[in-house]
């Protein structure tokens, strides 16, 4: 092979690998990402049962019911709408009524939410960022909450 042919085959090989990487990324971004919704957005958008989403808001006061077998029932609210949630497993340390939370899972046909994970990671304000943002956008963010932990 001449120098030029070698260079061409090299560029072709590199192009092939990068193109397949790009293809994989495009496919995965189409298929494997999970959208975040607040309860009101959920009500608006009419999400099909079975699709995978993240649902975030506050844990409604008085809604938490723990069953013996590790099942937990609670509701997530953004004060405008309420979505009942079923989860099986151990809740994060900071899970409390009135606290912000993000649950990931699927919508059931009856409009309830079946969570398979409840977010345990928090930022330094102990509030999942999507929840903080959606509370802020609805004017529910208490300013003292923000400054108290800065």
């Amino acid at each position: 092979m001449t120098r030029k042919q070698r260079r061409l085959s090299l560029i072709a090989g590199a192009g092939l690998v990068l193109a397949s990487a790009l293809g994989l990324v495009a496919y995965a971004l189409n298929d494997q990402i999970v959208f975040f919704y607040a309860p009101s957005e959920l009500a608006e958008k009419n999400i099909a049962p079975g699709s995978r989403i993240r649902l975030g808001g506050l844990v409604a006061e008085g809604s938490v019911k723990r069953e013996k077998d590790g099942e937990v029932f609670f509701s997530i609210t953004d004060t405008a709408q309420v979505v009942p949630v079923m989860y099986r497993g151990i809740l994060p340390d900071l899970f409390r009524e009135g606290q912000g939370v993000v649950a990931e899972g699927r919508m059931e046909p009856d409009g309830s939410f079946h969570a398979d994970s409840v977010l345990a990671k928090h930022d330094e304000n102990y509030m999942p960022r999507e929840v903080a943002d959606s509370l802020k956008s609805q004017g529910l963010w208490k300013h003292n909450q923000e400054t108290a932990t800065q």
Partner: protein
Amino acid sequence: MSWMSGFSIAELGHYALVLALALSLIQSTVPLWGASARDNRLMRVGTVSTLIGFLYVTFAFGALTVAYINSDFSVANVWENSHSAKPLLFKISGVWGNHEGSMMLWVLILSLFGALVAAFGGNLPVTLKARVLAVQGWVATAFLLFILTTSNPFLRLTPAPGEGRDLNPILQDVGLAIHPPLLYLGYVGFSIVFSFAAAALIEGRVDAAWARWVRPWTLMAWIFLTLGIAMGSYWAYYELGWGGWWFWDPVENASFMPWLAGTALLHSAIVMEKRGALKIWTILLAILTFSLSLLGTFLVRSGVLTSVHAFATDPTRGVFILAILVLFIGGSLALFAWRAPELKQGGLFAPISREGALLYNNLFLVAATATVFAGTLYPLVLEALTKDKISVGAPFYNITFAPLMVPLLLAVPFGPMLAWKRGDLAAAAQRLLFAMVLAVVALVATLIIEGVQHPLAPLGIGLGIWLIAGAANEIIDRSGIGRMPLKTSWARFTGMPRTAFATALAHAGLGVTVIGIVATTTYQTETIVSVKPGESLETGGYTLTYQDSVPHTENNYREELYRFVVSRDGEALLAIAPAKRFYSTRQMSTTEAAIKTFWFSQLYVSIGDQHDDGSLTVRAYYKPLVTFIWLGAVLMAIGGTVSLSDRRFRIGVAKPARAKRLQEAKA
């Protein structure tokens, strides 16, 4: 008068930081001028200002540390992140457990690397050394300005509060004492490689010697980054209480991207050093690696991850780092575009050759870096543009990152078996027969033991064994063990360069990590149940019997220890006590998992809620071979260290030759 010393130390630290900035301005300019004017005295100014600047930064960092140790709450940063009842170790590690302090650590390590080149770079051509220090000075100037204008850790509070607000309890752990310094030594360490690349471009000359000078620095940074990432992963695993060891979280990706690019750089620099080829590409990789470190700093330190919203409302820090990012990445790429075409290319090679194999490695590593880059930035860009919030997690990377790793890992054992310039693939395959047989045996054995319900897992285990056996195969083959008389092969074995062992160790480490990942992900068992005292649960063949719970109080927290007896086949083995801690200052509780290691596997137990009737929700995992994940990384780092000890790369190796010449001249 501890109050007096407390009063002055923060101001002295602040002052030292300002002086360090002034020195870094000298470091950024004078040696450049000296290098173009060929003036040795001016170039020496670069060395001296770098060393003194490092002393000032160290002093400033020390001053902040003293404020933490003395619990001087008149310093706002100490008040926000410390507490007088905290153990000494966590008072010290609290220095970098917050934004301002961690930027101080960043700059400390940056100037440390500059100082190392200034002190030990005597074997470099004087103009190259001067230019390297100058570029390092630019980076230092930018970040010192950033600290002084937006993130000053020495701000005072009047009146001084009586007690601090304590460090986030999750961070009160030995992990925090070790993880950030290691990580920063790694990804800030790549700054020196960047400086070498920029200096070479300014110089307009890059040759094999350049690669030999740069390789020890690349290796050093890479070793620390490897350990830092592994340490961070293990810390998250035991601290967060649910046994996950990698989350594809943007903060993790921020350090993983420079690691991938740095690994590629490590390999391409070999080609450049040995064969004089891939020069331009290696320079570009050096720039990209540190650019990714800068990107990581931007992601973690600008607040953009915490909230795109918060970033928009208080953008001072974010915009400042973004400006640094644009300036350095844009500037260095512009310099690259301008000067790189002038560099002479050298070293032809066939596609099937050692060079070809290393290039193949680079291609896949860079493509993999690109997928992580896309997965990390896409959600941020999408949210900024459309307000849609998405999360990109493991499923994304399983489809993008993993498929790119398979062809790369399959090829790893072939690399060292191929000759430079023109290799013979069939011959290499023949020599790798031993490794292939072992890999297939491992695959079949896994299939027989674990069954076919996870068809990909045996392939993964086989791949891991292929890497380990391939590494051993290389050593056996080169030393001629089994083919030659023992004495000959021993002589060949001891005569091999250390880099050969380094390669084998690092590649085997990769295999060990792969096995750990595959085994844990596929074959772990998870049990979540409620138990009352006296009741048992079972996971992975171990029986855990809940005894009782006892309270325990420490200075800054109180905890409830839940005692269990672990038994197997009816025989009691040991007692464990996972706990729930409550930190009163921050009103926060944390879960302390109990982890027991059996050979290389672990039993992982954490506690959920306690119910009114005395029953307790328990989450217990059996994680087979989970420690392989981190042991493999440690092996890789050991491989790096062995390579660093190779005679070729010893810093200052040119000195004896020069001394000899001098002697001859005298004689």
